[in-house]
């Protein structure tokens, strides 16, 4: 009887490598919060007419979205690059697919690994931000791993698809910027979506990425634990992306 699904073996191995080389991650997760607090807090906060949105300091308003963006960017690029690197450069990917593991299990393992790593990074970033920012969060911040997890799942699935399809690393970089930046920027990281014209705002609110940002902001800022709809929509969309990624994987790898 097989106790451990092979997908989890992929996760185990990626986490092993992740922690083995954690010093590179650590550089990022420490630098990023300081960069955020300094540029936004010092740069914008010291102006004579400080910006506030809905009664919150601007930095408080944008911090949840930026943390989310950091998590989903890591999920996307980590999953995509590892897939592409193993497939095109290292050759170790052939060692995996010649084992008794299905396409769905490979895809699930890779997506889960990227998701878990990016959520770990995200939690450390949150801790550091809370330490360096003069801000006391509501208790709902404790629920943030949930929204970060489903959001990372969503972007890890897209990253994996591109990692499977693309042949060159720099293409992933270019396309990644198109995939990650527009929906996160438009999703209201830096402004209130309500300020947009009605039709545009309604359309943007339907985007799962906007729900990710709204959900994160509810937990970080508003103390609102009512994120059920956001979680369900993002999770279901992520699962659809997982199924699509499995189809693409089968088409590309099992030709």
């Amino acid at each position: 009887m097989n106790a451990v699904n092979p997908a989890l073996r992929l996760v185990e191995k990626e986490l092993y490598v992740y922690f083995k080389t954690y010093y590179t991650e650590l550089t990022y997760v420490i630098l990023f919060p300081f960069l955020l607090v300094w540029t936004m807090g010092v740069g914008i906060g010291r102006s004579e007419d400080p910006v506030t949105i809905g009664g919150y300091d601007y930095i408080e308003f944008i911090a949840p979205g930026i943390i989310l963006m950091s998590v989903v960017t890591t999920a996307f690029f980590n999953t995509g690059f590892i897939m592409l690197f193993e497939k095109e450069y290292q050759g170790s990917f052939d060692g995996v697919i010649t084992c008794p593991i299905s396409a769905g299990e490979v895809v699930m393992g890779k997506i889960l690994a990227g998701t878990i790593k990016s959520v770990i990074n995200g939690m450390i970033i949150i801790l550091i931000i809370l330490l360096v920012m003069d801000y006391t969060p509501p208790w709902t911040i404790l629920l943030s791993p949930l929204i970060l997890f489903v959001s990372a799942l969503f972007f890890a699935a897209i990253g994996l698809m591109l990692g499977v399809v693309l042949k060159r690393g720099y293409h992933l970089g270019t396309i990644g910027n198109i995939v990650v930046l527009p929906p996160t920027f438009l999703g209201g990281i830096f402004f209130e979506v309500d300020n947009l014209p009605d039709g545009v705002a309604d359309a943007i609110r339907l985007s799962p990425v906007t729900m990710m940002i709204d959900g994160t902001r509810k937990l970080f800022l508003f103390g609102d634990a009512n994120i059920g709809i956001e979680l369900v929509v993002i999770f279901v969309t992520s699962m659809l992306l997982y199924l699509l990624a499995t189809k693409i994987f089968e088409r590309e790898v099992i030709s």
Partner: protein
Amino acid sequence: MPETVIKIEKLAKHFGDLKAVNQVDLEIPKGEIFGLLGPNGAGKTTIIRMLIGLARPTSGTATVAGLDIVKDSVEVRRIVGVVPQTNVLDRELTVRANLVYHAKLHSMKKIRYEKTIDNALELVGMTDRQDADPITLSGGMKRRMTIAKALVHEPEVLFLDEPTTGLDPQSKRALWERVSALSKKGITMILTTHYMEEAELLCDRIGIIDQGRIIALDTPRGLKKILKGEAVIDATHDGTVDFSVLKEKDFTEDMEVGPDTLRLYTAKKKEAISYLLSNFGDSISSVDFHEPTLEDVFLHLTGKELRG
């Protein structure tokens, strides 16, 4: 009659108009080392990829140990070991950790894989390098490690896809010894290669493959009998002579004439060479002879160089 482990019936794989594998029929009994010999692009790797479920056949069927290669592909991969053309090493893991990772992907329990990893490392002669970082290994060692990886789960069938390509002669010979040792353990093997000496040395039977079709299938000795005679004589000439008279000579079994080459298959090499030199000596610039090889068989059957 030994049990058939691999059974292939009218297997085909087309990529658009290209028939990479074209109506291949093959049966391989348990314990045999079967060689697929052919030039690059002949369809060898495609056959292996189909047998392990990583390429879908366009038509035809095949089973490995009774398992259907399409419906039961994951189960097929549980009982086969694969040594692909590229080394499948994870550079973030040590040699042993690579093998442990492989064992876990095969759902093996620790108590079993610790032992099989020791055995695999010993077989490929890498016990003393098990804690090494793969990037510090030579090309030959990486290849041996890839073979060890394919053996960890104790496969019934082993696919070796051009296992010695890119290796120096010494590493190549060492690897041949290891493959021979494996065959003594009763593992059925399919080996693809474009090195005739490798196929001749290791394989019980050889299928010569060209343009997706198996054009000849026999033991190495049997294949060479396709070429009548005990020797192959190769001569180069200035293109001014008509060699048709040779066809009538009783020392000629078969012959092929090119613009500046002559190939003669004969059972009487002394007589043939003597005749050539006495009658065409002015036009012939060199004469060479050798025992028939698999490459000669391939050339004879296809008119193409094996390593093309």
